[in-house]
């Protein structure tokens, strides 16, 4: 694995026209696209993305995702993402992602759990040792990062 920033923070995207709702703001589901694309970039750096899938027949699937919508985003606005690897074992990875607008305001956060699945048999399987090592290296590199206060709270709890 090459050097990657800590936290992982290379992803950038412009808000696209097809992501907007009738109000001209980004639709709920579009925040899901951005979170998912940002995390995919992290999996790419770990060589656990499309090439890995093609070569190994295994891939990461989201099993759970908790999104908090915090601010609106408009057409053409540049968004960036910061991702912390919170936890990982041989079959699972948990990522916390913040999507930021150009003005620095956090537009959304995502807390996602991914499972490593053998696509042909549809079952969760262990990662091969070299990929597991890469994941553990990133986990160790992210271990000292501060954890967000809302982490581990259920829906509605952060605002009660």
């Amino acid at each position, binding site marked *: 694995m090459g050097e990657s920033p800590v936290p992982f923070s290379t992803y950038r995207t412009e808000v696209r026209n097809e992501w907007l709702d009738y*109000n001209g703001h980004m639709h709920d*589901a579009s925040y899901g696209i951005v979170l*998912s694309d940002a995390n995919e970039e992290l999996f790419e750096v770990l060589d656990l993305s499309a090439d890995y899938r093609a070569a190994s027949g295994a891939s990461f699937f989201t099993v759970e995702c908790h999104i908090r919508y915090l601010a609106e985003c408009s057409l053409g606005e540049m968004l960036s993402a910061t991702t912390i690897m919170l936890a990982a074992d041989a079959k699972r990875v*948990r990522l916390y992602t913040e999507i930021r607008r150009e003005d620095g305001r956090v537009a959304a956060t995502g807390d996602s759990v991914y499972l490593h699945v053998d696509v042909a048999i549809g079952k969760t399987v262990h990662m091969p040792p070299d990929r597991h090592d890469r994941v553990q290296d990133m986990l160790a590199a992210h271990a000292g990062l501060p954890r967000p206060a809302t982490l581990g709270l*259920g*829906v509605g*709890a*952060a605002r009660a």
Partner: protein
Amino acid sequence: MQPAWVDYNGHMSESCYLLAFGDNADAFFRYIGIDEHYRAAGHSLYTVETHLRHLREAGEAAPLSMTLRVLDHDDKRVHVFHEMFLGDSEELLATAEQMLVHVDSRAGRSAPMPPDIALHLEAIHRAHAALAVPAAVGKPMRIRRG
């Protein structure tokens, strides 16, 4: 399920679950009077939080059916729980727990719902209170081991 929703694995992609649950919420809110006319008059519901759980894969063209129940509400907020099933079966594919806030779109801040909508929501909430609360509700995210 629509062909455009399918990812490289031939499965429904993640954001499409959000689209489908969004449509389900929209159908419910239309039922209680929150539609284009209502939104054009200056108020709307914004999603502030969504917790998705993916339980089974859905293949292309799979028929989907959805339920929604009102877990709680106050004058500005609605807490709902969706379940997505394969066709008319009891095979649960995914769930979504959501918090929505009623907003004054022009002022860009939360605002109480009008009495007619609040009363309608209250009646539905009372009827749904008889249902058992799903085990997933209010559960935080974590890696479940073993």
